[in-house]
């Protein structure tokens, strides 16, 4: 009896903590929004960044943070946060619209997507993961039924093959999206006057000038430099401090 009471108390404490944390987060979010509405963009950015640092990530939080940065003319970080909002929620119309405006303002360069990436855009990474899992289990169940059936049904065989094919395609799509130009290695130029260079030195020949908000794909890191795929099918070295990964 005592044990059961303790368990109930524990559950209540956990639920209360979660609710309280969420309520406090919402309060901080509202406070930052108020600062933004009053035109105190720096303070608003501080409030939003506090929430980001606490791990309370949401598409709307990054969207609002992007707006605050946009108001301070920090287009690089504005684009970065719009990209983060879209990474969390692919269909975020406000973030997509403001991202376009910020890119136009910053004259930011975009990575060219490969044709498989373009065709695979209709679903998200997580949706492909779920599709792969469902297709796999459907195929596995069909296979088990086929193994123990006295008569092999042609429909069951076809369903089994179809399921495994869908599973394989979904896994390929997951890999392509995750490793593509808009995948987990996508980063945004946040520094000013960033030049992609031939070697890891400030004096090395410049390959491409990257305006704020330009997209790059990080290929490797060496010390304070990153080697990245650039827009226009180029590659070069960029100071690591001038870029931030979209996916945190």
């Amino acid at each position: 009896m005592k044990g059961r009471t303790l368990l109930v108390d524990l559950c209540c404490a956990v639920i209360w903590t979660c609710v309280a944390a969420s309520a406090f987060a919402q309060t901080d979010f509202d406070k930052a929004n108020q600062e933004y509405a009053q035109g105190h963009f720096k303070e608003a950015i501080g409030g939003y960044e506090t929430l980001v640092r606490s791990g309370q990530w949401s598409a709307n939080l990054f969207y609002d943070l992007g707006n605050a940065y946009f108001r301070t003319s920090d287009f690089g970080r504005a684009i970065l946060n719009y990209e983060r909002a879209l990474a969390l929620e692919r269909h975020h119309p406000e973030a997509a619209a403001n991202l376009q405006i910020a890119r136009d303002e910053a004259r930011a360069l975009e990575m060219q997507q490969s044709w498989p990436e373009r065709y695979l855009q209709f679903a998200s990474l997580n949706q492909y993961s779920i599709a792969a899992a469902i297709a796999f289990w459907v195929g596995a169940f069909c296979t088990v039924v086929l193994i123990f059936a006295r008569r092999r049904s042609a429909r069951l065989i076809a369903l089994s093959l179809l399921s495994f094919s869908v599973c394989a395609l979904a896994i390929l799509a997951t890999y392509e999206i995750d490793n593509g130009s808009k995948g987990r290695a996508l980063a945004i130029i946040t520094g000013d006057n960033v030049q992609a260079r031939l070697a890891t030195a400030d004096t090395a020949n410049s390959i491409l000038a990257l305006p704020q908000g330009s997209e790059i794909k990080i290929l490797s890191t060496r010390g304070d430099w990153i080697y990245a795929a650039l827009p226009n099918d180029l590659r070069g070295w960029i100071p690591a401090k001038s870029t931030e990964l979209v996916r945190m």
Partner: protein
Amino acid sequence: MHSSRIGLVLIALIAVLGTNTAFAESPSVTAVLGNSEAVVGQMVQMEIKVTGANNAGLPTEISVDGLEIHQTGTSRQFEMHNLTTSSSTVYIYTILPLKPGTFAIPPQTIRVGSSSLRTPALKLNVSDSPNRSTRSNQTAQPANTNQLAFAELIVPKKSAFVGEIVPAEIRLGFDPRAHPKLIDGPEVSGQGFTAQKLQQGGENLETINGRTYDVVTFKTAIAAARAGKFDLGPVKAKVQVVTPRAPGTRRSRSPFDLFNLDDPFSDPFFSDPFGQFGERREVEINSEPIAFEVKPLPANAPASFSGAIGNFTMTTEAKPNSVQVGDPITVTSTISGRGNFDRVNAPALEDEHGWHKYPPSSKFKQDDEVGISGTKTFEMVVSPDEKKQSIPLLAFSYFDPVKERYMTLHSDPIAITVQGGAAPGPSVAAQSASPTSATTSAVPAKPQDILYQLTERGSVQSFTPLYVRPIFWTAQLIPLLALLGLAGWKMRQARIGNREARRIAALQHEAAELMRKLRRNDVSPQEYYAEASRVVRVKAALARNADPNTIDAETAADTFGLNGDSRERLKRLFEQSDELQYSGAHNGSKRISPENRRDVLELIEDLRV
């Protein structure tokens, strides 16, 4: 008599020989130079060969301005051809050039007996320095004719500007008889300049001073990094060669050793390589350094000068020619010519007002081995912010080292049509905005303004892909367990199915066995009726899928749907079986009558569901 005959023959023979000798002795004179090319201070030998005269009067010194010519020795030669003998005397002179130039050694009058002979006039070219490579179109020559290998650096000019690319050629000559093998290099040493990677240009045989050399040519380009005077080179290379093992031993003169100048190839090893083995050794060869003067660039460089030095031309084109305001136009500039293309940057827009330009990209296509000449193409995207009539002029500046002044190339005007009045507005953003979403910004709207803030924070999300999260893989346990359950259930079903099939097969086998026994005559009535009733029970059990022991006469009759007579006969069969089994009636008749047997068999065979 006999002795007088022999004496006559001898006299005749001497007379003939004397006549031949007299013909052979017709005096003649030739003169040759050991080398017609020399440098100041380099000794050259001259031979004057007098044939058919024993005592010729030759001068011990020959006077030529700029040359010191002394007689240093004589040698006598005897030759016999078809019983004809001839003798000649070679007078050896040593020539020491004192100054550069082309010298004519005048004909020398030689008194032979009462007649006089004249040597031909000889010509000797003397250069001022052993480094002959600074002159173009000049044949390579080893400083020492006994060298097995030599290196030579050739540059077309002795002065250049800082950053100017100067092509250079390196020639390595090897005596092929030494089986040379290049181990290291060549490399151009020196400070104050950079040299591009060497490209092998070709290989051919050349005869230099009467000796054949295998000459390998490398091409490169050098660029001075700072102004001043410095030495270019020497070129260094390491070669492995084969040399005779015992160089100090006496040996016969080699055909290559015309003047007995200690030619290493006069060793017998080279005339019979299989007779003795040579010795491999490494030899480092060096060229003479070249004094090089580097001049600084003039100070009045134009704004668009990026360090390009050489001679260039530029063409420009733009596509498309008709655009909307804000649309991109690709301007392609092609710079061709000869110079330091690594410092050739994209041409600059002379007037950027009303244009937005993007960083250019470039491609270089070289036309030679070292990349001095070629074509560099720049693609620059520009977009008009307002209506424009033409692409702004592009300017490219470079320094021409021949004219020694800066040059600026301008593109031709390219007419374009720009439609529309202003940059595109926020229509896309406005259309995609959600009308249900909360407050608008307090900031006054710009022509292209962002959308409102969102007041709902939304649920907490993660950037981690679903397939990496533990919850995803934990969730897979549910279908996995379901799959295992399905498999287990299917296996159990199969096992049960197998047990039932075995039971049915056993009953069918038993019924068949019993029917076979019932058709035999050698069984007792007790046994016969017991087996007959058992057959009925087994058949009924098979039909009802039941245990045979639970079947009685009524159940069996119901199972097979028997009518009154058959039902009675079946009951009687069961009663008779029970009676014989339990009442001891088996002590009566020992055999069953054929009629009863037939009756029972008919009854049993007619039992069908």
